[in-house]
């Protein structure tokens, strides 16, 4: 009887020890307080970020013959101008302006941009699929959301999708230098779990 009580007392003690010490090991900074505005949260999909009536033009280079492509690649000013024009048309990615100011919940993958001193995310991009930064064609600008949390967030697994929650802003300014795009004032990040 004595022995078993000791055993259980020891186990409890060690469990408490480990528990307390592990608390010391990890800390999450997640929840940014939702402000006075208690507006509803809308779950949106990536498709909704593209205007419903917009039709993505085909990649012009796909339909050209090899000769045509070679001619464009000759390096002349004229060709360069043509390429520029084609690219402009191809890359044109309009935004859905009425989403501006909405509180949304968007499932996305994270591409980090800035870390703070403890490798927490200060600024990042949200994209619809992983590998947006690798060899696959990059997503158009209306499928990229630039997220800025008010406080750096910790994300354990950068390769898993998350729910990004916050207020969406549509940057309607278009200039020669930059395309219009989406910004997210990030409130919270949650791991994404597929609901069956």
């Amino acid at each position, binding site marked *: 009887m004595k022995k078993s009580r000791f055993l259980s007392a020891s186990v409890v003690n060690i469990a*408490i020890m480990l528990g307390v010490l592990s608390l010391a090991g990890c800390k999450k900074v997640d929840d940014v307080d939702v402000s006075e505005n208690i507006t509803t949260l809308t779950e949106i999909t990536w498709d909704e970020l593209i205007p419903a009536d917009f039709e993505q033009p085909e990649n012009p280079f796909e339909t050209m013959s090899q000769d045509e492509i070679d001619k464009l690649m000759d390096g002349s000013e004229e060709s360069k101008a043509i390429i520029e024009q084609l690219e402009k048309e191809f890359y044109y990615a309009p935004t859905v302006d009425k989403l501006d100011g909405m509180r949304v919940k968007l499932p996305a993958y994270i591409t980090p941009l800035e870390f703070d001193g*403890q490798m927490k995310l200060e600024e990042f991009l949200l994209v619809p699929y992983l590998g947006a930064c690798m060899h696959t064609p990059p997503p158009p600008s209306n499928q990229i959301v630039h997220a800025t949390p008010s406080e750096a967030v910790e994300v354990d697994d*950068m390769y898993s999708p998350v729910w990004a929650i916050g207020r969406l802003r549509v940057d309607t300014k278009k200039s020669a230098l*930059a395309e219009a795009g989406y910004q997210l004032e990030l409130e919270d990040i949650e791991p994404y779990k597929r609901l069956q």
Partner: protein
Amino acid sequence: MLTLAWQSLRNRWGTVLLATLAVAVSVSLILTVEKIRHEARNSFAQTVSGTDLIVGARSGSIQLLLYSVFRIGNATNNISWETAKEIEQRDAVKWTIPISLGDSHRGYRVVGTTQDIFTQFRYGNDQALRIASGRAFDDVFDAVVGSEVAKALEYAIGQPIVIGHGTGSVSLVKHDERPFRISGILAPTGTPVDRSVHISLAGIEAMHVDWQSGRQSSDELSVDAIREMDLTPKAVTALMVGLNSRAAVFREQRSINTYREEPLLAILPAVALQELWSLIGVAEKALFFISMSVVVAGLVNLVSVLLASLGERRREMAILRATGARPIHVFTLLGLESTGLTILGVASGLLLHYIILLSSGWWISENYGLVIPVGIPDAQGLRILLGVLLAGILAGLIPAFAAYRTSLADGMTQKL
């Protein structure tokens, strides 16, 4: 009861001292490891900021990050000057900072770059480089050194320095006739910038004027003659790029990666940093786990020392019982003893931790460029201290409980 516990411990200090010392050492270990981990992570993560892309000749992304930002390792190839110019002139690009690597000065890396490094480059919390004394490079042979270089080699403004070819710490072949001059010293940044010597791209060309065939030629050109030459670089090692819109990064990266003129690699520094971090992170976590295990070992040892001593103390318990102590008194006595030892161990550990930091702080900063500020423990440190204290107190209840049971069973009948 407190005085009893105190007297009891004092009487047996030889035995318990070692156990307490073990706890102290383990606590100081974990505190120091955590501190260094924290600062190293901080230093690592703060190396570059506000840069959208880093472009280099095609190699691997971590390799590019390492040589361009951390100044570790070497590039296999360069980027042509034309390409660098082409990228700079793109609409989407706001600024570029070209850098040229490959040379050294007394073990410190020499970085050829433009004035943009002083205006556009950011690190840490969006901080720009600050020239603490002197000015940026103006003349071909001007050099701006990082704070560590200036301190270690005791440099002053106007001092002539000689830059060697290659990255070895000892230059076997020097460019004696063409000394550079220190025009400025940078304020400390806590990044590899501190350990670098910055010269203009023209300066790099000037240095290599007679190295065309891979070895120094015997003709000697005068310094003034060199200044007159066209010192436009033919190539640079890497390019740091800032874009007008951060979201444009994917497209520009893709465009650079598929550049037809030459094989290039464009990386997002944060992504590459994250990849590098995941490698280091495993070792880091292992280190924490090991330190924690050492603490657990220290506490287990303390408990076992106390438990072991119970055998000899049965007589004591019997005497206490005989003079009127109840089992709960025995429990309290031992509980107080173990709590006292734990507190002593943790406090000594904290003291030891400070001693270690203070005494080795300068050595760490000299050799690793890591500055570890010494102050009251941060939130993490306090959590560790509290956690160990709590764990120790709880663990100490084991011998207390054992003594309680023993004294109940023995009563006063313990025969020697």
